[in-house]
């Protein structure tokens, strides 16, 4: 009796300790506001980094926490992007509602897909996610009347946020908007992974046969997190469509699914900040290297990836926390 209350109390304490904001975290977020003052000409890039970070965050939730490996998550990114773009094209350019509708739509499709996802594991899971991604891409390609096919869609400019913040050429509004959405989604993810639900997910990741044995229904847990992740990826896609006023088949491509996994591996999986750090490093490196040599920049990205996986198997963040002498 006393024993169980004791463990309950310590578990609650542990969770509370985990969810406390640490100093580096408190410093990290204001730093993301620096581009506004220091690099105002890099705001379009900062905007795409924020979007990529949100997308990577959504993948981290399933790949890093629930152990659902995926090579087709661009499917939800693209669904969100096309949903927002089609809303804008058909006369509804209000950003916030458009964003929510697109996220809900991607989440719904994610929920439907989750019934298949939880039935398979490992290689079969890779193949299923890959296949779903290709199917969606092909569907968008053949529905040319709706999606514009290979030519893509151009969307009328999104209306000002709150009827006040106009989407400007410099990208002030775009970055502010994407950063705000990223922050809200991050808070949500942080709350999720530091809850008992998050712990159960980690249990599934470590040993999915043992979870039912201790009375945890892991399939429904996986379905919930997959749906949330799909919705979040949809939000990222919608942000891209709204802030760039354009959408093309590339949003659904395998490349995008693969790039996001690369970002996660660079930053470190299973840590929410890994997604953000990975997106920053990948896109800044890509931008700088492509500026130096537009033809062969991919070589350096490949080299960077190899160095990271060889010498920092837990990603850059994992490496840093090991240097700092912290256990995971």
């Amino acid at each position, binding site marked *: 009796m006393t024993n169980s209350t004791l463990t309950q109390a310590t578990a609650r304490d542990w969770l509370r300790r985990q969810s406390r904001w640490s100093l580096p975290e408190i410093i990290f977020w204001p730093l993301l506001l620096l581009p506004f003052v220091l690099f105002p000409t890099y705001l379009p890039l900062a905007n795409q980094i924020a979007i990529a970070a949100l997308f990577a965050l959504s993948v981290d939730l399933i790949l890093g926490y629930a152990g659902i490996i995926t090579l087709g998550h661009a499917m939800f990114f693209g669904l969100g992007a096309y949903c927002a773009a089609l809303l804008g094209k058909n006369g509804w350019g209000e950003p916030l509602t458009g964003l929510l509708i697109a996220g809900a739509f991607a989440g719904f499709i994610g929920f439907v897909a989750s019934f298949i996802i939880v039935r398979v594991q490992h290689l079969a899971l890779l193949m299923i996610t890959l296949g779903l991604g290709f199917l969606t891409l092909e569907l968008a390609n053949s529905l040319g009347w709706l999606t514009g096919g290979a030519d*893509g869609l151009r969307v009328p400019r999104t209306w000002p946020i709150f009827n006040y913040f106009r989407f400007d*050429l410099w990208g002030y509004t775009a970055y502010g908007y994407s950063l705000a959405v990223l922050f809200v989604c991050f808070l949500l993810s942080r709350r999720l992974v530091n809850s008992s639900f998050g712990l159960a997910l980690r249990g599934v990741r470590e040993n999915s046969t043992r979870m039912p044995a201790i009375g945890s229904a892991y399939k429904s847990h996986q379905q919930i997190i997959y749906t949330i992740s799909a919705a979040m990826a949809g939000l990222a896609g919608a942000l891209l469509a709204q802030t*760039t006023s354009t*959408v093309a088949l590339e949003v659904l491509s395998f490349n995008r699914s693969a790039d996001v996994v690369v970002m996660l591996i660079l930053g470190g999986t299973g840590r929410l900040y890994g997604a953000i750090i990975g997106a920053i490093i990948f896109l800044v490196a890509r931008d700088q290297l492509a500026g130096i040599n*537009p*033809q062969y920049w991919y070589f350096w990205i490949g080299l960077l990836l190899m160095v990271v996986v060889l010498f920092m198997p837990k990603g850059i963040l994992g490496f840093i926390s090991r240097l700092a002498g912290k256990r995971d």
Partner: protein
Amino acid sequence: MLTHRITAALGLALAMSTSALAQETVKIGVILPYSGPFADAANQLQAGIDLYIAKHGDTVAGKKIELIKKDTGGPAADVAQRMAQELVVRDGADIIAGFALTPEALGAAPVADEAQKLMVVMNAATSMVTEQSDYIVRTSVTIPQVNYALGKWAHENGVKQAYTLVSDYGPGHDAEKSFAAGFTEAGGTMLGSDRTPVANPDFSAFVQRVKDANPEAVYIFVPGGAQPAAIGKALADRGLNPPATQVFAQGELTHPEALESMGETARGIITTFHYTLERDDPLNKEFVEGYTAANNGREPDLFSIGGYDGMHLIYEALKKTNGDASGDALLEAAKGMSWDSPRGPMSIDPETRDVVQTVYIREVQEVDGKLQNVVIHEIANVKDPLH
């Protein structure tokens, strides 16, 4: 005293700005997929740009031309949009150019519009590209332009019914529609149309369907690479080749490199294009010789000529405006401009800002023991029929 100082400061500022003007540069941002699956197209286009600059010098109307290259890494509309934005706000580009792929041109169009910069589309061949912004000028070709003309010409030359077989993607659909439109408006009958997957190694089943319909002519459209040879073989295997059945296509199908892989099966194929490498013309000879010399023997193609003429447009427009690189001035100078290009006479339609040019109907014939495209008919001043 204070006023004096202000006047002095103003004078100084003025002097500085004029001296800055004297050595001012015109910055051209070039947005192309330098890496990824379309890198070859981007490199060919860039070589066209480079050749023009090498020939005509890098100073025009007293201003130095500076290129800023930006890579999109494939068909990526959002990256192209960001690159255009960065070119304008960070690099201070006066003109944005390049655009091998339609989605990328669509992505950058809003930026050109808002920043009021001239945007020179050097390839992207979908009709609607120039409708996306009033600042877009195109120096390449549109798919309907060449295929509509071919459809009409086919009927005028005695073909009564035809069949189309195209790759199932945007350009294929456009080609199918515009050939059929030209052909039926002239009075021809379409017996049917089929679409093949974009990456298709084997055409025998599709060609069999065409054979069952027994048309006088078949129009085909496939992307370059391994497919021209595959479809050439499939057609020949089933006896669907000239002279028994006429085979029509857009020019890429029988591009010199494709001809090599197609071999004998290419003989007699009739294609439509805006640029013919072998066309006998002094300007073209000079262009091809200069190009092959500068590129290790690689021959120019549609991308190269698009880039070359795009630079010509920029140079001539700058001459007209006396170096004024503002979007509106350049646009006014570009509208209605006409010149003799290595591809033949061409001009910019003052209303649609799209290219107007001669369309060449070519037949694959043997010349000096080598199969090549021989121009059998020229249709002058063809506009895009969809605008």
